[in-house]
């Protein structure tokens, strides 16, 4: 196994399994927190991530399906492509129409997840990948939750809103409205969360 990336959450290794290109996501121990708390969080999150990845992929969604699950690691299919974050921040170039289309799809997928009572928990461009065929994939279910709570789901919208420009967010909402069975309620909830006033007035990107 070769280490290919190291994030805040986990180390990602590349490897091959059953003749497929795969990655292994290992939740590294965090030395800043006590062992009991750290073990509990890593195990809980690994288990929940694998379960939700499976739930989403078995409903035909574009997520890396889990192939083998350990205590703190998951082996899953490798998605080859680039993260949307690279495009929304201008780090990599893409046509305006393609970017806008990808955000629309991101909205559609978000709505489908919510229909399955899954809140992603970190639904930002950094966790959406565009593969070489132009298909959009949702990755990193590390903070995802199986929940009926409208608040949890609305937070997915909020995170996206805070991560992209205004017009891209409008494209996202257009997609979301198409797929989510109760998008009107969720968009209202988003406005309500924002009204509570703890949120900044502008996003990381200029509008």
């Amino acid at each position: 196994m070769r280490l290919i990336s190291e994030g805040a959450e986990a180390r990602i290794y590349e490897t091959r399994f059953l003749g497929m290109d795969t990655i292994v996501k290992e939740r590294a121990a965090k030395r800043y927190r006590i062992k009991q708390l750290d073990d509990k969080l890593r195990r809980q999150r690994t288990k929940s991530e694998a379960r939700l990845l499976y739930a989403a992929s078995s409903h035909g969604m574009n997520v890396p399906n889990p192939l083998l699950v350990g205590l703190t690691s998951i082996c899953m299919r490798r998605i080859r492509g680039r993260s949307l974050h690279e495009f929304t921040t201008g780090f990599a170039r893409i046509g305006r129409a393609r970017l806008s289309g990808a955000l629309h799809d991101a909205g559609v997928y978000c709505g489908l997840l919510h229909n399955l009572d899954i809140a992603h928990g970190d639904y930002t461009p950094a966790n959406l990948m565009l593969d070489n065929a132009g298909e959009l994939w949702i990755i990193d279910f590390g903070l995802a939750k199986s929940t009926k709570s409208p608040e949890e789901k609305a937070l997915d919208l909020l995170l996206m809103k805070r991560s992209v420009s205004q017009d891209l967010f409008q494209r996202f909402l257009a997609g979301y409205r198409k797929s989510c069975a109760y998008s009107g309620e969720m968009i209202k909830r988003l406005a309500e969360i924002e009204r509570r006033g703890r949120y900044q007035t502008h996003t990381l990107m200029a509008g």
Partner: protein
Amino acid sequence: MAILGIESTAHTFGVGICDKGRILANQKSMYPIKDRGMIPVKVAGFHMRNAHLVIKRALDEAGIKPGEIEAVGYTKGPGLGPCLAVGQLAATLISKRYKLPLMPVNHALGHIEVTKQAFRLKDPLVLYVSGGNSQILGIVENPFRHYHVYGETFDIGIGNMIDSFARAAGLVPAWGSTVAKAAAGGRYFEMPYTVKGMDFAFTGLQTFAEKSLESHSVRDTSYSLQETAFAMLCEATERALLLARKRELMVCGGVAQSKRLKEMLGIVAKEHRAGFFVSPNELNADNGAMIAVVAEKMYRSGQHYSAGQLNINQRYRVDTVKVTW
């Protein structure tokens, strides 16, 4: 020539004087907190009676006359309305009497900038933790140069959460330090842990901890509460550090005095090879010098305010402030 700054967001009425960033005076009077926390109008009355004394002590410490002051800064917010109003009034009177420009300062910026200056930091990721605030911030240039809030508490500040728990546990709420003492040698038991991306929430944890006092010792509960709350802050901070790609991590605000929190954040910084800086305790506590330092930056970078803009705002968000220096 010097800049005078007045801080009065909560329990502290502080007056600081600085010149080209050098702090010449930093005087304060603190409302004595007993066991029940603060009633804003009572605290404001206390500040009212003490304001002139603190201003005089600051001028004496700096060894300057009022005529040598160039501009006056006061805390516009966020904070308790009645308390903010006292600082604003004092600053307005001085500015009228000596015909000086007034600078409305954001309280969080005070904590950040004074620490940044103390260590000569360039572009740190900031964890600002105090009674009423818990935010992760860093400078972003768009749509204008400001401190972007990468993450923050969804409900209450971590300091107030710890103090409320302290009262429920029958401990004296002395800025979290009694909870830290009570936690020594404790054993961990599971508590709710709420981090969403780079944001976090504390009320669920507080309620759970207070209920746990019925079945667990104060020691174990204090220990578990502290470990859980600080781990939440560290996880969110670590994520922001990587996202923002900053090379310096800085912690400031009242809760930055916690030894355990400093230790944990130090590990986070070290693992990502970032420099780690903790604000000195005299600057973590609310003080006037930090308001003077920001007022000077605002004044020297050409900011100008007319009467209508010299208000107070209890919910004055740091990410609405243009950083013009």
